[in-house]
């Protein structure tokens, strides 16, 4: 099962690079959906290698697979169609440079996890920490450098997925109630953000967040 685990983590690492260079929103959303599915499989692989899984765990896994791999991407696609925005034009940082920056961030993640050796000694895959850190930083990077409100939502999902990679990879069990709460929160967040994007689009006739700077000191 360890092979499957490292395959999944490697795929998640490459997914970050793809996300950095994707300019079509539909493509971005598809990548996030794939990330959600990989995350579900990751929790399965982790449970398999640790041997502890029961119906509660399976329930959470299936729900998270459905929500992160299906429902949220569908919501995003729906929003995208309704406000008819297809591409992220003129990102703050160009796509090639984004790639290099994400690569540098991934390198940084590998370096950071190499100087904290305790993670490996406790049965977790050595790739979990780099994969989680690099996904988290990719999400933050997307939120900072993309202009469209909807891409920022995508960036947030990537960020959230990165945190979940850490949680599942390190096999930290929160219990059924908390896991369900987490999923519900993320779902509600994307839902409300989608509504906000609608409203921004109606008030400003576009969803360029760089014009949202009237307030401030």
């Amino acid at each position, binding site marked *: 099962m*360890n*092979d499957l*685990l*490292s*395959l999944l*983590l*490697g*795929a998640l*690492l*490459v997914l970050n*690079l*793809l996300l950095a*260079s994707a300019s079509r929103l539909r493509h971005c959303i598809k990548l996030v959906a794939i990330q959600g599915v990989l995350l579900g499989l990751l929790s399965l692989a982790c449970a398999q290698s640790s041997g502890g899984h029961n119906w509660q765990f399976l329930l959470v896994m299936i729900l998270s697979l459905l929500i992160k791999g299906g429902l949220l991407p569908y919501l995003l696609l729906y929003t995208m169609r309704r406000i008819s925005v297809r591409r992220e034009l003129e990102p703050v940082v160009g*796509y*090639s440079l984004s*790639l*290099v920056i*994400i*690569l540098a961030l*991934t*390198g940084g993640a*590998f370096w950071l*996890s*190499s100087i904290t050796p305790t993670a490996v000694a406790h049965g977790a*895959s*050595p*790739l979990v920490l*780099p994969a989680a850190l690099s996904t988290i930083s990719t999400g933050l990077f997307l939120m900072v450098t993309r202009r469209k409100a909807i891409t920022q939502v995508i960036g947030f999902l990537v960020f959230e997925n990165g945190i979940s990679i850490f949680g599942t990879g390190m096999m930290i069990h929160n219990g059924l109630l908390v896991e369900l709460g987490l999923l519900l929160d993320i779902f509600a967040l994307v839902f409300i953000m989608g509504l906000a994007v609608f409203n921004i689009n109606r008030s400003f006739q576009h969803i360029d967040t760089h014009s949202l700077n009237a307030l401030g000191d």
Partner: protein
Amino acid sequence: MPQNPFFWWAGLITALLLAPLLPGVINKTKACFVGRQGPSLLQPYYNLHKLFRKDCIRSSTSCGPLAWAPGLELSALLLALLFLPYANQLSPFAFTGDAFLFAYLLGLGRFALVIGAMDTGSSFEGMGASREVQFAALTEGAFFAVIGFLAFASRSLNLSEMLSCPLPANVPTVIAAVILAAGIAFIVMLVENSRVPFDDPETHLELTMIHEAMILDYSGPDLGFILYSAALKLWLMTALVVLMLLPGDLASAPVLFILHLLGVLLGGIVIGAVEAVSARFRFLKLPQFLLGALCTALIALALTVIGTGGGR
């Protein structure tokens, strides 16, 4: 793993003999995908036969390279062929560091083509040469990252050992890395051989050509040399990808020999399938794509370094 030089020599001779078959396989696959019958599998052999019977016409503005470039390219590729471990048998010519010689022999072949193309003085060929060099510069990074990955995974700088060593069984991350690196090597192969998402070997529009634009002025046996070296290069790179995916301790030498051969032919079918279902990328998109390939290859490298304990 018992060494059997016989299978290595058999592999080399197969490569020399069957190389023109590979473009035939690709074309046949493409034809099947679109529902045509397509040219015969042996069509490349007929073409070569036809070209070698003809006379050579060379441009009067040429000052020499046009004449010797095809020979130089072919000999560079023939030399490079000597370093691959066919059927996972170590090459008798292998030495430490031959991976770099291998890479630079490929580079020398490209140099010969480019200098020949520049020599004609035609603007189309100059343009093709310029593009070839630009993309080669971007691809080489990814190629060297793959070589670096292989070197790290096998702890060797010897191409034969790199490609034929068994996988370190206790390092799970290496499997992920091998798959990543083989994917990148496949992409490098497509770029180096001017296959579809990067260049269209069948285009008739000089403005969009890369490789084909460089050889517009060749004719007769010269063109035959170039076509044969292109086929050899295709075989060489496909074999590289196949060898990366074939662990050396999988089976005995004869079985490996068959597997290797089947793998290369299967590679031809995969290339044909990729060509049939995808369209050529825009030129502007290519550098970004190649950069992505380089980054992915570096991640594969990082996976191996982590998995094997960072060389400590």
